[in-house]
């Protein structure tokens, strides 16, 4: 592995956490240009194999880094001044190509920047590039990307998870110090678990979705993927809070989340839901999660058996609600205002009217999974089926939400697995949509209830593939899950293990 600069005894620069990199920037140990170049060199070195990035913003990133160094020379500081990060390609970035992993949006260059990204930029971030995702964030492996599949840095024949698989692989492969993902049914937590990094899904309403290309509007949240829990708390604090441009953002002023990381979980009531340890899950995953819960007990937490009886309904509810919302949200891709229009460029064939242009644009531009979900949503919302599917799913959603409310009357956090298995081989589930959906059974209910959850590394299976511990908190319970995740992390060394190359 090439060494980057001289002054990094413990780590090469690209291996640093955000907070370690920031400490060195503040002390003048290294510069943002050095950090950014180290990440770009790392991208050159391994991304030909991993394929985490859809677009590398190399030239602009180095210019932003130089500007950050100049500001620091002039005595300025900011929470992320000069820190190079990667952004999932479903968040729009002014002047930087944004495709949502879709062929339909090839060449789209947004005229504005998403609020979450804008807040990172205002805090001094350097934008390294845009990361791969399942098309419009619909998937659990990045295999639904319209461009290519991202490979898991721990084992290149395995998926990185999804849909934020590009961001998870970029962080696990040290091609960014941290990254943003989005989580509609587990799309931050599941790839974080499969790639051995930290992934946080904040409470619904905590971070603005302005400029997040909409998939399931009652479920979508932006969340950080980072090398440790401190970094997740740091990025959450920068992004959280009300935004006039997103009426679903909550008015509560966000606290300093890093102040919650006391390392003390004595007396914390940790609920363990029986329904999250099911037949058919990989034994190594169940064992690692149970060992992590035992560790929390050793640290002074009180372990409480609980029940979330409607857990097995989360998957069918999600696959009614999310596609219904998607079918409405994706109506905008008609090839009129943006996107690749069918038959443009002289080859119109038999297309000679607007509606046929729209049908062909969507039929040719969307991939199979996006079409499948649009079809599913259009069907369940259509006349005669609405009550049986959509209304019924929303009623059962109420029961899932109540399960959490009742649980959080008894406990402070819930500890559970993130996924039933470690990273599966590329291609293993692509022919069976329902089988792919089952990889999200432990994450979906958190989105349906609007509560928060975090994935933190808790071990490895017999093939050295990472395993994640999920800690779930009540709505706006981020400080509690971050505190528990941090205390656990600090008592183990899972987070400091690295892929072989």
């Amino acid at each position, binding site marked *: 592995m090439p060494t980057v600069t001289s002054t990094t005894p413990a780590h090469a620069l690209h291996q640093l956490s955000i907070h370690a990199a920031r400490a060195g920037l503040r002390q003048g140990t290294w510069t943002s240009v050095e950090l950014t170049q180290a990440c770009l060199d790392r991208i050159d070195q391994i991304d030909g194999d991993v394929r985490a990035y859809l677009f590398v913003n190399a030239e602009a990133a180095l210019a932003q880094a130089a500007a950050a160094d100049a500001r620091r020379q002039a005595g300025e500081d900011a929470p992320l001044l000069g820190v190079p990060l990667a952004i999932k390609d479903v968040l729009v970035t002014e002047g930087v190509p944004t495709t949502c992993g879709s062929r339909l949006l090839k060449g789209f260059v947004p005229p504005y920047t998403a609020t979450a990204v804008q807040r990172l930029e205002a805090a001094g971030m350097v934008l390294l590039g845009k990361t791969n995702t399942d098309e419009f964030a619909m998937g659990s492996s990045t295999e639904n990307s319209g461009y290519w599949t991202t490979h898991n840095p721990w084992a290149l024949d395995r998926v990185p998870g999804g849909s934020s698989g590009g961001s998870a692989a970029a962080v696990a492969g040290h091609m960014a110090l941290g990254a943003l993902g989005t989580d509609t049914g587990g799309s931050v937590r599941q790839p974080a678990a499969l790639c051995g990094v930290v992934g946080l899904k904040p409470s619904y309403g905590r971070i603005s979705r302005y400029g997040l290309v909409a998939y399931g509007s009652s479920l979508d949240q932006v969340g950080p993927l980072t090398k440790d829990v401190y970094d997740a708390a740091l990025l959450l604090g920068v992004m959280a809070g009300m935004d006039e441009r997103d009426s679903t953002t909550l008015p509560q002023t966000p606290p300093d989340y890093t102040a919650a990381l006391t390392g003390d979980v004595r007396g914390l009531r940790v609920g363990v839901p029986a329904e999250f340890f099911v037949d058919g899950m990989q034994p190594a995953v169940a064992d690692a999660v149970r060992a992590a819960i035992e560790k929390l007990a050793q640290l002074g937490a009180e372990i409480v058996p609980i029940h979330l009886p409607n857990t097995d309904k989360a998957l069918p509810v999600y696959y009614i609600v999310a596609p219904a919302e998607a079918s409405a949200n994706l109506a905008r891709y008609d090839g009129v205002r943006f996107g690749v229009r069918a038959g443009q460029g002289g080859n119109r064939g038999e297309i*000679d*009217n*607007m*509606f046929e242009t729209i049908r062909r644009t969507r*039929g*040719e531009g969307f991939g*199979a999974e996006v079409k499948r979900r649009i079809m599913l949503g259009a069907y369940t919302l259509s006349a005669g089926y609405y009550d049986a599917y959509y209304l*019924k799913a929303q009623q059962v*959603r109420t*029961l899932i939400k109540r399960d959490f409310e009742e649980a959080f009357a008894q406990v402070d956090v819930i500890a559970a697995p993130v996924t039933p298995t470690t990273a599966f081989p590329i291609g293993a589930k692509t022919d069976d949509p329902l089988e792919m959906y089952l990889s999200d059974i432990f994450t979906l209910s958190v989105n349906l209830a609007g509560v928060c959850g975090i994935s933190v590394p808790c071990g490895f299976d017999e093939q050295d593939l990472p395993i994640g511990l999920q800690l779930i908190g009540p709505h706006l319970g981020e400080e509690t899950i971050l505190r528990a995740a941090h205390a656990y992390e600090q008592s183990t060394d899972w987070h400091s293990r690295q892929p072989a190359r």
Partner: protein
Amino acid sequence: MSQSTHQSPNQLTPADVRHVAELAKLRLTQDEIDQFAGQLSEILDYAARLQEVDTSSVPPTPYVLPLHNVMRDDAAEPGLANSAALANAPDTEDGFFRVRAVFEE
């Protein structure tokens, strides 16, 4: 986990798929129509287990927050310039989006 015990499986025919595709303005190939008929039937069949849940007195949850009708001051702010709004359009004319004829001929 028990399989659902509903009476008739949710089988979509290719004709149903073509109808929904038209609602969704999606042009599908014959292969896609056949494939989706099977896959959507399987997914809906799985979703049918929700029918076993008693929801007779349960209100729906379309949205988890108690926020409603959030207002801000009705003050004008600069919007996108016309050129920026049109920059990604496949076809434009005189500052407008240009589409093909709505009706043939």
